[in-house]
């Protein structure tokens, strides 16, 4: 215990005398907390898109049967997803995209109302992209999602128009076309009229059989046209989504982002500190002196692991508290957060100590720590559906033998009550701590 206290005091004193490191340990959680907090609490920025509407104002309203469609309404919908930059011509729109002042251009051609009114052909808008793949994808997604919404609204209106035509065919009424008004009889009234004519004919009249056939047709038409209205309604929105999560509690993306941010911070602080502190013992040539019966390998490794984990947890907890200023967090679960951070911190520190035991210089240890830890983050975040089954199995194995995935699961369970449970994740971390401790002891053998 005396030796452990002496070593802890020594390492804390050395850390305190490394001003850059101390500044980093204070500034890092504050900066990350503010950045993540702002990112999660503020609405996303809308991409700048050059916008040209070539539809003359007088033609902005399209007449479809008895319905009027105001195209400017869809314009406003679209402007919620993009920041429009009005331009005067197609050439100017292209120039803006080319010189990068906008990352895309959206052009509404003058014939759009005509194409919509015809209801017989698809109406087109033109989108011109520039910029990198991420920007293009962002604008493409924004515009396509808004166009999908507009299409859905239009489909509903077209369905309405089709309904009114079917009603006219069924029940009859006034039809306004090219400035004239026509009285349409309708199938129901036609059938009634035919029945009356049939009744007025002598029983032996040869016309009765022919009228009966027409009357029968009218009856069938009435029945099936009524059904076709439901079919048209379904075509307007053929598939709707009903969501259900089958395993565990669903973690909202924002809350998951908080867990990822905490896990990444914990990982970097613990791995870098633990690997650096042990490598420093070799760099200062003190390892041989300590191992000459003054301090056992187990005590030395435990001291580095505990110190790095405690500092990592302190930094990450401070960061989480900072994020809590921007994003609502369940503070009643703070004890579980600390438990998860403790497990994760010890596992990361154990990995860091193993790295420190393998190399002889602090710089080499830091470099190796970064090289090991960064890919682990990316691997742990690969969605299962995005790669082949075999590759995903390989990724799962790699993620399982390093602590990031397990630490992230523990933090997600502690913060968001997600699955797998905190106990399972902590058991996984405990196994990893034991494994890395054994590896470190082997590496420290003279």
């Amino acid at each position, binding site marked *: 215990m005396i030796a452990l206290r002496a070593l802890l005091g020594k390492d804390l004193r*050395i850390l305190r005398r490394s001003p850059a490191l101390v500044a980093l340990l204070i500034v890092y959680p504050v900066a990350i907390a503010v950045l993540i907090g702002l990112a999660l609490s503020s609405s996303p920025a809308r991409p700048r898109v050059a916008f040209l509407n070539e539809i003359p104002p007088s033609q902005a309203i399209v007449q479809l049967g008895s319905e009027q469609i105001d195209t400017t309404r869809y314009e406003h919908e679209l402007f919620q997803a993009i920041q429009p930059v009005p331009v005067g011509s197609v050439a100017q729109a292209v120039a803006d995209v080319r010189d990068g002042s906008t990352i895309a251009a959206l052009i509404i051609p003058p014939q759009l109302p005509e194409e919509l009114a015809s209801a017989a052909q698809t109406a087109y808008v033109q989108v011109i992209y520039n910029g990198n793949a991420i920007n293009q994808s962002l604008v493409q997604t924004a515009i396509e999602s808004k166009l999908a919404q507009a299409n859905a609204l239009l489909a509903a209106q077209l369905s309405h128009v089709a309904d009114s035509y079917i009603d006219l065919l069924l029940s009859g009424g006034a039809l306004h076309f090219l400035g004239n008004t026509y009285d349409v009889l309708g199938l129901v009234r036609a059938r009634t009229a035919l029945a009356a004519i049939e009744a007025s004919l002598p029983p032996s009249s040869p016309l009765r059989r022919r009228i009966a056939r027409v009357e029968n047709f009218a009856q069938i038409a009435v029945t099936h046209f009524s059904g076709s209205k439901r079919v048209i309604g379904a075509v307007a929105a053929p598939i709707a989504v009903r969501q259900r999560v089958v395993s565990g509690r669903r973690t909202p993306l924002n809350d998951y982002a908080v867990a990822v941010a905490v896990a990444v911070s914990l990982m970097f602080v613990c791995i870098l500190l633990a690997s650096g502190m042990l490598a420093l013992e070799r760099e200062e*040539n003190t390892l041989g*002196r300590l191992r000459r019966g003054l301090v056992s390998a187990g005590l030395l490794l435990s001291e580095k692991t505990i110190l790095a984990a405690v500092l990592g947890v302190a930094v990450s907890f401070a960061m989480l508290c900072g994020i809590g200023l921007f994003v609502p967090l369940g503070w009643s679960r703070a004890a579980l957060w600390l438990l998860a951070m403790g497990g994760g911190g010890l596992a990361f520190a154990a990995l860091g100590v193993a790295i420190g035991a393998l190399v002889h210089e602090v710089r080499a240890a830091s470099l190796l720590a970064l090289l090991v830890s960064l890919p682990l983050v990316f691997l742990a975040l690969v969605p299962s559906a995005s790669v082949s089954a075999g590759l995903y199995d390989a990724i799962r194995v790699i993620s399982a033998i390093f602590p990031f995935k397990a630490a992230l699961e523990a933090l997600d369970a502690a913060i968001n009550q997600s699955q797998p449970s905190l106990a399972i994740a902590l058991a996984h971390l405990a196994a990893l701590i034991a494994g890395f401790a054994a590896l470190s002891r082997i590496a420290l053998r*003279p």
Partner: protein
Amino acid sequence: MTSLEAIGLSKRFGERVAVRDVSFSLGRGEVLAIIGPNGAGKTTLLSMLAGGLEPTAGELRLPTLGGVGWVPQQTAVYTKLSVAENLRLFARLERIADADAAVERMLEQTGLRARAADEVGRLSGGNRQRVNIAIGLISEPAVLLLDEPSAALDPRQRARLWDFINDRVSAGTSVAFATHDIAEAERYAGQILVLADGELLFAGSPAGLGAAEHESDLERAFVAFLTERGH
């Protein structure tokens, strides 16, 4: 009175034999120099005597009182800690009852009192080596082991270092040191061990080695001795 005795000490690293069947003894207040070409096994032998390496075979009899102090070849101190902090840390790790008194004693003996609060990283090479030795001596060991203690020092610093070590020897501390400097071995050691390829080739006084080669200059005698034995 014997302070330290090695009987048939050997050390293997895999297939390689670093030290083979080395035996010697060191009396109280004696100074022993271990000399030999590079790779002879000098540091390995000292590390086994210091307890940093486990011998593969052989027996080591250490002093029952006082223990062994170890001064590695490269300064093994924390450069971000002050002189006094380094001494206090190792005093506590050595489980010395009154660590502060031990620190005061070593500051006095090494003449580093004026630099006690300075970070070791800001000291000269000579002063760092004094801190290095002071840490080895802080537990007042019966035997002090030094691995090339004066390798990085200028002649003036070297003379001051040996004055300090000789004071300890006069107080009864036994000293064993490895060196490439044959003149240093001749000047300060009463007994020398010549190692080559892990084998002990000679154990005796410096004068004895010169006499064996009929050579008054010890360095020439040492080279001739090794050459005759194919090293």
